[in-house]
């Protein structure tokens, strides 16, 4: 039985991913900080959960320790993420530091720790959930965008560094997804039904892992946005300012 580890698996995209991998016959280990949420998801999914706080080194060490005795990891998905929205000067520094700790430091520390103890199976996949903001900019969440792009850069380095070991690294750049996370942080939820359902995203990720894709921008519309943002950055920056920042 193959083993998938998913961080932030008690809610949103992480939960959808856990469902998808359980359905495909994987043994899933979820990681989440929310204990009641983890208990519910554990029962619902028939998965194992590790309750740990990704913000602290102790939490990372706890996860590494818990994973030391399980079977080797075939798929590791760094999905856990938090956000802090508002104009840069208005958002409290502590919130921003936490965004950096969860979105940026934790995936890097966890990956290094698990590589160091050789916990990956042959031909394993490591998946990083970045954000479409890597291409389009995201005014109103500067720190969030910075961490997600930093993560994409780390994944890129990792995909080169781990090529000799045949470990596959994939970076996913999802756009707006229909989750509680997005509802909490976006200025306008009137068009929520237009957002991609997390189940669809999980399906894309699963297929990406199977095909061993390196970059994944799920959804046709998101792909257009990514190309526009990459080749006409000013246009996208203007649009994002109009759509997001001025409505905050």
């Amino acid at each position: 039985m193959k083993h998938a580890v998913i961080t932030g698996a008690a809610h949103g995209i992480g939960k959808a991913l856990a469902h998808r991998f359980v359905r495909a016959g994987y043994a899933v280990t979820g990681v989440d900080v929310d204990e009641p949420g983890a208990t519910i998801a554990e029962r619902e999914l028939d998965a194992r959960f590790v309750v740990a706080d990704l913000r602290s080194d102790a939490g990372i060490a706890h996860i590494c320790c818990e994973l030391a005795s399980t079977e080797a990891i075939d798929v590791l998905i760094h999905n856990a993420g938090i956000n802090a929205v508002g104009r840069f000067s208005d958002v409290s520094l502590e919130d921003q530091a936490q965004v950096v700790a969860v979105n940026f430091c934790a995936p890097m520390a966890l990956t290094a720790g698990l590589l160091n103890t050789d916990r990956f199976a042959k031909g394993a996949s490591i998946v990083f959930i970045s954000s479409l903001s890597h291409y389009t900019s995201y005014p109103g969440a500067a720190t969030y965008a910075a961490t997600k792009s930093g993560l994409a850069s780390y994944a890129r380095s990792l995909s080169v560094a781990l090529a000799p070991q045949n470990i596959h690294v994939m970076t996913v750049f999802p756009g707006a997804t229909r989750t509680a996370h997005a509802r909490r942080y976006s200025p306008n939820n009137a068009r929520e039904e237009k957002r991609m359902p997390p189940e669809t995203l999980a399906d894309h990720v699963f297929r990406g892992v199977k095909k061993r894709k390196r970059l994944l921008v799920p959804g046709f519309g998101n792909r257009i946005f990514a190309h526009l943002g990459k080749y006409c950055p000013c246009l996208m920056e203007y649009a994002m300012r109009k759509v997001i920042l001025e409505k905050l």
Partner: protein
Amino acid sequence: MGKAYYTPEGKASRAKPALSFFDSDMKPRKTVLITGATDGIGRALAEIYQKRGDRTVLVGKRALDALYGALYRKDTYCQADLSRSDCADRVRAFLNAQRIETVDLAIQNAGIGYFGAIADQSAESIREIVAVNLIAPLRLTHALAPHVKKANGKHVLIGSVAHAFPRSDYAVYAASKEALRVLGRNLRVEGDMHVQVIHPGATRTGMHRKIGWDSERAKGFPPAERVAQKIARAIDGRRAVVTIGWKNAWGRFLGRYCEGAINNLMRRGTM
């Protein structure tokens, strides 16, 4: 032919215009804050601005007694460890103590690296690099924003061209610089402050020695003084994103827009 002067309306005139406050000899001294100013590019930048007659505020980790040279005095040097959470408070306290209310240029230059395999890097090392290269700029941008705004000044973030390439032996450094670049980009789009991001290439500084990088190769890099000259010139200009050196500029362009091809090349190199 005598020298022609131009009036503000664009008409040529023979009469020398009255000196305004700004182009007289009494040019107002700018206040320039530089982090990581005890070594390498930061030190060279500090020398440039000192020579121009600007008031410098130098931030560094070392104690004042351990530094030599006329640059570092009690009224110009602020000791603050940027990996700690109290760094911004220390800088703010220093500015208050020196009665500095405006900062024209806040140059966030401090950076640390790590050289070695990804699997060997400890969680503490990762956290320290992120603390200095990303969280300290966040803290200082918050702390200095009112000072810079008052002077209608500019925040300058010193990135690195390393962000445009996959770096298997200093992945966290490259990632932190990429994060810094994107932070600068989004702050610029938000439009509340002037932010400039400058990407120097590899430079002959103490950083390579500190992180145990092959110092023989580092000897071929341009010296910090020359790079700092170019950075100062870029800061005088108005471009929001500047890469130092045309080779680096091309490299950065290729690294970003031919991502797949570059990755494949480097993958073959590591095999």
